[in-house]
């Protein structure tokens, strides 16, 4: 195959990847988009196999990885998607590092002259350190998301902070840069020491950057690592002079960056404050003051009565709902209400869940039709005319304090559940949310609290709706 033919095949694959992302603009075109992506990847792999001198190892490795990937994709629970995605980011990062090492050990295999030219070294350095930080950072993110904090303290979902943390990170980053420079200017044969040291330090830095970030900020972290894994692929594309890797990497990199931005915006936090960490996990900090105020609480039967007599109900699901695995029960409840002529809709806050769009997937899994599910901007205006807002396992995202100046969450966009005629809230207890602040919504005269496990409560409501 001529170099031009290869380049044209790679161009076709790049276009197919762009179409894959484009398809996600609507649920109806999304599957076709995914097929484009698969098609593009098939072309890329086949063309590469065709130009590789020895393919037996590669095909064997593809088969092994493919089988593992198949099994994982079939078995993973939808609640575990954040862990899966974090784990996959780490694999891309590690692969980038391994490829960079292979290039350093044998540049001629990639058509790169020996000794390595300076430009290639800079690219290899960038690809390797971004790849390594993606690898170790994603492992920490995976541990935090999978709740392995009890087994291993670094995986704690509470921020791990120590004095001088940011200074330490800065010093380590500078040492890494210095080693990178040494690698770039090293004499032939002397590349390995600075290269391996730099790789090791990037590994440590990846860990240190993620441990201070609390559980509430995980949607940002996972998007950020998504972005990194793309940049790592791009970096390798530069070293190998491969436009396909550069294009695919930049698509992924910008996608992750946009998602990080959207998540930060939805939490009203600046990207830097998330990175610096220390936020979240301080649960119950001000929960003590809650006891003085009185709340009205009711039973599932009361809720069923109110819901049955309402004309329009907006359900606000939060992560607590997913933790309790109550999605199916909620769908059943909605189904029953709809059959009684009640207009039931779902309102989704961008950070409802552990990763962007997580709650939508969880509801889709419970077979909630997506045309009943609305994004915050589309439904916020309708709370005022709704009879009931039913908040299930959500807290900070419906906290009206966000509209009051001086509150710690001032400016955070919220679902305006407090504007509904009646507000029903299911929570396990009066404990505060991730932001650690009290929620005045719970003390309104029109609010009724239903305490208990979301699944149990909703199942009881389903039974009580006649």
């Amino acid at each position, binding site marked *: 195959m001529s170099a031009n033919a290869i380049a044209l095949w790679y161009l076709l694959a790049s276009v197919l990847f762009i179409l894959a992302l484009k398809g996600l603009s609507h649920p109806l075109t999304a599957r076709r988009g995914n097929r484009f992506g698969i098609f593009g990847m098939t072309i890329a792999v086949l063309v590469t196999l065709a130009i590789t001198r020895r393919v037996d190892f590669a095909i064997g490795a593809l088969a092994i990885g493919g089988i593992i990937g198949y099994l994982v994709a079939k078995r*993973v629970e939808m609640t575990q998607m954040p862990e899966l995605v974090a784990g996959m980011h780490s694999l891309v990062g590690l692969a980038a590092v391994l490829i960079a090492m292979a290039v350093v050990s044998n540049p001629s295999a990639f058509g790169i002259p020996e000794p390595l030219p300076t*430009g290639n070294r800079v690219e290899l350095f960038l690809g390797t350190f971004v790849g390594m930080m993606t690898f170790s950072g994603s492992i920490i993110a995976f541990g935090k998301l999978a709740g392995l904090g009890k087994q291993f303290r670094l995986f704690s979902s509470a921020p791990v902070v120590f004095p001088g943390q940011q200074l330490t990170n800065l010093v380590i980053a500078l040492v890494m840069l210095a080693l990178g420079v040494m690698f770039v200017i090293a004499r032939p044969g002397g590349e390995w020491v600075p290269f391996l040291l730099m790789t090791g330090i990037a590994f440590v830095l990846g860990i240190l950057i993620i441990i201070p970030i609390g559980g509430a900020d995980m949607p940002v972290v996972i998007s950020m690592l998504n972005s990194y894994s793309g940049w790592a692929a791009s970096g390798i594309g530069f070293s190998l002079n491969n436009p396909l890797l550069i294009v695919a990497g930049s698509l992924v990199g910008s996608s992750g960056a946009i998602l990080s931005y959207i998540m930060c915006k939805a939490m009203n936090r600046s990207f830097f404050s998330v990175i610096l960490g220390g936020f979240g996990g301080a649960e119950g900090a001000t929960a003590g003051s809650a006891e003085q105020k009185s709340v009205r609480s009711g039973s599932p039967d009361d809720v069923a009565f109110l819901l049955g007599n309402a004309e329009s109900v907006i359900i606000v699901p939060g992560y607590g709902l997913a933790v309790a695995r109550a999605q199916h029960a909620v769908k059943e409840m909605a189904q029953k209400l709809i059959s009684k002529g009640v207009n039931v809709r779902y309102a989704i806050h961008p950070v409802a869940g552990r990763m*962007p769009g997580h709650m939508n997937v969880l509801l889709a899994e419970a077979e909630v039709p997506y045309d009943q599910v609305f994004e915050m901007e589309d439904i916020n205006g309708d709370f005022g005319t709704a009879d009931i807002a039913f908040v299930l396992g959500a807290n900070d995202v419906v906290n009206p304090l966000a509209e009051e100046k001086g509150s710690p969450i001032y400016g955070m966009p919220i679902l305006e559940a407090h504007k509904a005629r009646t507000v029903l809230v299911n929570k396990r207890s009066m404990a505060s949310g991730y932001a650690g602040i009290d929620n005045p919504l719970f003390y309104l005269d029109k609010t009724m609290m239903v305490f208990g496990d979301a699944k149990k409560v909703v199942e009881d409501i389903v039974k009580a709706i006649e």
Partner: protein
Amino acid sequence: MHGVVVDPIITNLTVFVLAIFVGYHVVWTVTPALHTPLMSVTNAISSVIVVGAILASGPGPFNGGSVLGTIAVALVAINTFGGFLVTERMLEMFKKKEPAKRDAGRKEDGVKK
């Protein structure tokens, strides 16, 4: 080099910058409801790095580089297959349009009665 040949780094940079713009504009059109599938499919797409891994695995003579390359192929193939498959699985859930229509029908029945 001769004043007419552009250094490949510049060509790569051109591709890189333009691809970021394309990515930026395409990703903003993605509906927020599909942000999780977006992450899993971008994950699968970033596994195109498997191209580099395959090249690393088979330069001909067997050496340290080809071992590293082979390991990289196996690791990233998990993403290639797993990423697209799990995306397909999720999108399958969003596809189910039939229950929605049935619900709408049932709702109308309820109103009529």
